[in-house]
């Protein structure tokens, strides 16, 4: 059990007023609630403003390449399933450069949690459209407005069969913390897409914009009905739901890999006898 304080306080490289601060706060609360200690946690991130977050946390950190946090996290989790592995990165990183890994992670269903700082923009590279930018969103790189349709990560994840799909908003930290804790507790691939306003480059999807729209899913909402979940996730306009949109049990990847049944790969000894037997097959 760790307290919020154990996850540390660091100076950040974020802009004053950025939604990332509240996100970090909610995340820490969620971590504390999840009962994980810093040493049990591994944060894997890509590159971007969001991806810096793990550097501002007391935990193990693997800060990899832009777009490639998921495969690195997958490798780490398979190497040592005792670790609670959390992928934390931006919308561009996770759904843009990393799109193929997102598809694969959902299909594979390794026990990972993916927390996306979704500011609907490329922050660190100064404000180009991201996959989650709305069609028509004007930026310096898209002066005529983004021409491609918005990628809706939660709908996509639900449609693709993900087992745990949640949305949160930094304006509701308590709820965010809860989503984080639930996602960590869920065994399998879990996604928490977090609305995080970028005060420097996204002048459309501002704190107020989200605030006005986001509402918590009602208590009676049943996340186990995937079709209903899809319908609900599709709500985009005046009202946008936050909460666990979809939740289902799915076979976890680790359980179907015989080599993992004998415990973590890390630290395992070569069974030289067996290897010798294996070699004999070539004779």
């Amino acid at each position, binding site marked *: 059990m760790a307290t919020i304080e154990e996850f540390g306080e660091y100076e950040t490289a974020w802009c004053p007023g950025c939604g990332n601060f509240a996100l970090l706060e909610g995340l820490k609360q969620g971590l504390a609630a999840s009962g994980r200690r810093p040493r049990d946690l591994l944060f894997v991130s890509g590159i971007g403003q969001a991806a810096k977050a793990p550097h501002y946390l007391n935990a193990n950190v693997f800060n990899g390449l832009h777009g490639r946090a998921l*495969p*690195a996290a997958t*490798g780490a989790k398979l190497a040592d399933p005792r670790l609670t592995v959390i992928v934390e990165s931006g919308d561009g990183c996770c759904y843009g450069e990393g799109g193929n890994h997102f598809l694969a992670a959902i299909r594979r269903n390794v026990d990972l949690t993916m927390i996306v700082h979704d500011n609907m923009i490329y922050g660190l590279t100064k404000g180009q459209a991201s996959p989650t930018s709305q069609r028509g969103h004007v930026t310096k790189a898209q002066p005529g407005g983004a021409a491609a349709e918005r990628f809706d990560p939660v709908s996509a994840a639900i449609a693709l069969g993900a087992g745990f799909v949640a949305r949160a908003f930094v304006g509701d930290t308590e709820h965010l913390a809860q989503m984080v804790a639930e996602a960590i507790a869920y065994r399998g691939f879990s996604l928490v897409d977090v609305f995080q306003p970028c005060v420097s480059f996204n002048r459309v999807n501002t704190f107020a914009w989200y605030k006005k729209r986001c509402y918590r899913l009602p208590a009676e909402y049943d996340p186990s009905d995937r079709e209903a979940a899809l319908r609900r996730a599709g709500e985009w306009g005046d009202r946008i739901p936050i909460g666990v949109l979809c939740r289902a049990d799915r076979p976890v990847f680790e359980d179907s890999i015989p080599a993992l049944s004998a415990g973590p*790969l*890390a630290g395992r000894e*070569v069974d030289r006898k067996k290897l010798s037997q294996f070699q004999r097959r070539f004779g």
Partner: protein
Amino acid sequence: MKSEKAVQVIIGGEAGQGLATVGRLLSLILVRLGYRIVVTQSYMSRIRGGHNTFAIRVSPGEIAAPVEPIDVLVALTPETVDLHRGDLTEDGLIVGDASFVEKRKGCAAVPFGEIAREQHVNTAAVGLLCSVLGIGLDMAEALVDETFKKKNEQVIEENLAALRGGYEWAEQREEIHRPLPAPRRREKRLMMSGNEAIALGALSAGVRLCAFYPMTPSTSIPLTLISAAGEAGVVVEQAEDEIAAINMAIGASYAGAPAMVATSGGGFALMIEGVSLAAMTETPVVVVVAQRPGPATGLPTRTEQADLEMVLYAGHGEFPRAIFAPGDVEECFYLARQAFETAEHYQGPVFVLTDQFLADSARAVKPFPVEELEQVRPGADPDSVKTPYRRYEITGDGISPRLLPGASDHLVVAGSDEHTEDGHLTEDLGARLRLADKRLRKGLGLSRETIAPSYAGDAEPEVLLVCWGSVKGAALEAAGRLRDSGTAAAVLHFSQVWPLDPGRFLDRLRGPARVIAVEGNATGQLARLIHRESGFEIPERIHRYDGLPITPGYILRSMEG
């Protein structure tokens, strides 16, 4: 290497006709009987049809090279005869179905239809070859027994009958006998290809995760690992793409599982950003690149040695690395092991460069002492590090204490951005210099420990053949033939192509009248590298880049003009 009496049997036919099955079965019989073999597999990028060959060069003594001349040509289709008739030796024999092989001297027109049912024709051919080569049928029978023991009695009986049918048909025809000399001594050997040896070497080093995306000719490495996965406790994961593969391997290695990837040129190209990540985060990772002719998709099932430079400079930014290039199946095993050790010790990417020829080339190898060999142990002892733990502590040799996450209270922070000693990202340019220098210092150790090229042959040769990787056998045999014909000759073979330490080979280059670089590429990549590193410009070059392996004959012919 002395030239050995050797016989070459080539089985040719369409993909899907089972020629590799015949070839492998015969090879295994020969190996069990104590013969040495060099298998060369030539196949097309298709699943059925086309024309493939499985060549077994066999000898009672050590051999290491593929050759062109054919002593026994087993044709599963008429096309085989047309394509390869020209390579038959004077006393060469064509074996094929009576429907397309003439009944004349030097031909065995076999009425396979009478000898065996259609699905057992291949087995009959093996029996027949046992007779042709004069090696008896016992071993073949034993093998058929083993091979089909998982199936039912009837299958075994049918196959044994076919085997015997082929054998007996041939026994009666002395004119088609091409008996092998008796094997020297019956020392235990295994039949193993280059890729299988790499997999076995990796297992013995303690590989725990191999991530791959299928790509010829590398795929047999993960497939071999998979066949051992359950008992060896290895995760072999087919990734969604090569980028995922290398990042998965790096993530696994960071968390304590010795990890590797295996791919070929185009797949490796996609991994290059990951190579740079391994260097920056100082994470051990073994990258096997099985070369094939490019550019782009090129000739996906053929061989070439044209990716040395790409591998050497793969990755943005500057960092040290080691590149091994095994010359034979034994080196595949030992250098795969070495790659894991080097990767763990120096904490970064280490490469094994092989190629389609060696990857698919089965040889008779002594069993490796896998029961004695040590495994790699990832990470340092958490109790041995200073507190606060700094993952990238500046040290004299550039090697910092690597701990594994979760294994202690020490937190392990690995960074892709430039970082401070504790792993957190920094934009302090002084820290940048210190960390960059630290990383580069590891290159000194790597240089010091680099494997000197092996030298074999006359002490004062007239001709020195310089080569790397899979050309080794051909060069050795070419040198042997030169010596046989009175020319002092030697071979300088690089099984590690980076770092190079000219101090360990420059003298060898300076003496001989003819120094010839022999490479399976068009531009002489190793020769250029030697030039840059040692100042010695190798005056003569032999290149091959038509997709086939370099043979002793190719070298000797090229030397003549």
